[in-house]
């Protein structure tokens, strides 16, 4: 190992140790830990029934054989997107 890369590795180790010592014993789960959907193209869309904004139930399977459906999951009402 070259002296320079050794120095970089040693510095990284010192920084990592420093950061680790500052973390609480039970660190909060970071957002990056969130699982992404395991559903993929070719899977059957899980069926559901949910209330729409007029309190009427909407059943995904009712569109079967009739319409293509875009399911647009958004974060919260009154936010962007």
């Amino acid at each position, binding site marked *: 190992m070259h002296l320079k890369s050794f120095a970089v590795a040693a510095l990284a180790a010192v920084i990592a140790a420093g950061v680790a010592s500052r973390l609480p014993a039970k660190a909060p789960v970071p957002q990056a830990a969130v*699982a992404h959907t395991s559903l993929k193209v070719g899977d059957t869309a899980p069926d559901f029934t949910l209330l*729409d904004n007029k309190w009427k139930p*909407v059943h995904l399977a009712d569109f079967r054989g009739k319409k*293509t459906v875009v*399911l*647009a*999951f958004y974060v919260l009402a009154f936010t962007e*997107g």
Partner: protein
Amino acid sequence: MQAYQADRQKLEAADTVVLGISIDSPAANNAFAEKLGVTFPLLSDMNRKVLKQYGILKLYNVEKDEYEWAQRTTFVVDKQGVIQHVEEGTSAVNPNSAIAVCTTLHKK
């Protein structure tokens, strides 16, 4: 959601309906729909059942507390009930690729 409303003619031409879904109450979603002028349904997944089914329940840290609501995600489901397109995160805000998939499906 506004972008889907703006593209409603393309969606109708592709024989496609849009369902917006969030954890908000029907009352909140209705106020949101009225504010945006959205005419497609906004669905309430208040118990987060569908978010769990679809694997897109995301943990958010707000003011030292933790909350779970949706990761921004778009799925296109064809007329046979099969998923034809999945888009997660900020890119899912733009509906163009989802609409392109719907248009292609319609031409088949």
